[in-house]
């Protein structure tokens, strides 16, 4: 079984180990609430963007509405808690299943058409859901929903302080990356990249394109819902904008694209760069920070589109050998 999985190159393995150690130690070294909050935000962004990456990066089916899965994942446990007092831990799988169902409903018709229809459909559906949820009293309308204020048990996932959340999020991030890594090595991963490159050629080689895209979307939606549910239980509160808002979707795209869409660690790297930057912008500009966020995102989109469609990961892959050669020469 071990031999079935390709081992990453040794240099890469060392970087992965160092990164893992750094992420495990981070909240212990930076015990200040401010830094722990950045850490949790980073993990959440990395999970979301990595989830998006499966269908948006590897398969090249650019969803700009992944907030619908994130929001569904966030709302479902809080709604089941509000209505019937369900513990959030029990509500999370329900949200994930609902997201998979929604993914199939969206993928079935749009994956028959070209990729642009899928992108547009995802934006439209996510916005419709956001508007609809904002007017529906049962799910809290524009105000939103709240989770348990006091934990009745650990299954309420309501903890004091960020530390438990940090490690739960870290474990989920590890899960998402591990699943992505395994799939990347298998036929499924090859098929996704083939589909991204040329659907026509892929089909001519017997690749079941529509089914493969649907599976990728369902998996991606499941992980995005998981990210949303983590956000919901951690914040203990969810409203239409923070669950289904367009910014939630756009962030996933930008983080992944900046780091490198369709690479295992690209989304994580994107989040590693952008989350601290965003926090800094919020601190410097105060309430106007979210405006600054949009400006930064806009700038990043332009830069990626113009200069580095492969993202930073691709840039690094091309630059690293050159730098190494110079280091040797020196």
């Amino acid at each position: 079984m071990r031999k079935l999985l390709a081992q990453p190159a040794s240099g890469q393995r060392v970087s992965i180990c160092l990164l893992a150690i750094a992420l495990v130690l981070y909240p212990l070294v930076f015990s200040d609430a401010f830094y722990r909050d950045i850490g949790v935000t980073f993990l959440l962004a990395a999970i979301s963007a990595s989830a998006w990456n499966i269908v948006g990066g590897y398969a090249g089916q650019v969803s700009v509405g992944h907030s619908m899965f994130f929001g569904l994942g966030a709302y479902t446990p809080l709604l089941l808690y509000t209505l019937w007092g369900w513990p959030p831990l029990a509500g999370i799988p329900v949200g994930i299943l609902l997201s998979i169902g929604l993914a199939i409903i969206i993928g079935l018709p749009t994956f028959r058409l070209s990729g642009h229809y899928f992108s547009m459909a995802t934006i439209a559906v996510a916005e419709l859901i956001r508007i609809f949820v904002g007017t529906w009293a049962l799910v809290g309308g524009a105000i939103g929903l709240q989770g348990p204020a006091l934990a009745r048990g650990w299954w309420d996932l309501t903890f004091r302080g960020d530390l438990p959340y940090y490690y739960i999020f870290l474990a989920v991030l590890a899960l998402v990356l591990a699943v992505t890594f395994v799939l990347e090595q298998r036929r499924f991963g090859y098929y996704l990249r083939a589909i991204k490159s040329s659907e026509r050629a892929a089909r001519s080689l017997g690749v079941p394109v529509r089914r493969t895209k649907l599976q990728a979307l369902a998996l991606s939606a499941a992980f995005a819902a998981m990210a949303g549910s983590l956000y919901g239980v951690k914040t203990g509160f969810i409203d239409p904008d923070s669950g289904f808002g367009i910014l939630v979707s756009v962030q996933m795209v930008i983080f992944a694209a900046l780091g490198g869409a369709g690479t295992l660690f690209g989304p994580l790297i994107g989040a590693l760069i952008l989350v601290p930057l965003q926090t800094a912008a919020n601190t410097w500009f105060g309430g106007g920070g979210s405006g600054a966020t949009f400006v930064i995102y806009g700038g990043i989109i332009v830069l990626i589109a113009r200069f580095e469609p492969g993202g930073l990961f691709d840039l690094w892959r091309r630059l690293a050998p050159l730098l190494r050669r110079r280091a040797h020469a020196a």
Partner: protein
Amino acid sequence: MLLEARNVSKAFGDFRAVAGADIAVEQGEIVGLIGPNGAGKSTFFNCLAGDTLPTTGRILFDGVDVTRAPPEAHARAGIGRTFQVPTTFDDMSVLANVMVGAFLRRPHRNDAREHARRIVELTGLRADQPARSLGTPSRKRLEIARVLASGPRLLLLDESLAGLTPGELPEAIALVRRIHRMGVTIVIVEHIMEVIMTLTRRVLVFNQGRVIASGTPEQVVRDEAVIEAYLGRGARRPRE
């Protein structure tokens, strides 16, 4: 009969790119398909491969009606094809490209990789080269390797040898021969008469969407209708 297509047409609006074409190919043959540019050869291939739905006609593969089946079903049934304008997976290595084909009948990665390596070697490509860095003739060769790895019984080659220098031709011809000897039936579209003359014993001549002549290569190059199609009046259909 391995492949039998009867009265196949494909219309784009009012214009019939393929207009009642027939073909019948026996297991083990290499059949040449020639004809002037715009005759409808590639469109005919697209119909045979399930890439476009023909407007009329019926296509049987090994006795099974595949007329309306999608391209992936054609591939599974054993109809492989290359594209006139190569469509390699440019973000992937040569080996990974070929593995995508190999996965069709070898779902496990290591089996697929091993098979793909053998095919890459057979076709004289370099496994770890990025597909992006290949020139057009090499891309066409990669397409052959890729589809060959998918284990086709019938291979439709659409100008796969175009763009090669005269010096490179013998090796490419030898490759097609080797594929044929592996038991693959071949239909080959080619403009270079040397290729057709060396490889095929039966040629179909396409013009304005239908077969206007057939026979040995020597026979068809002397055929009046063929000479007329290539050189005579009305040979070049205006392209609007």
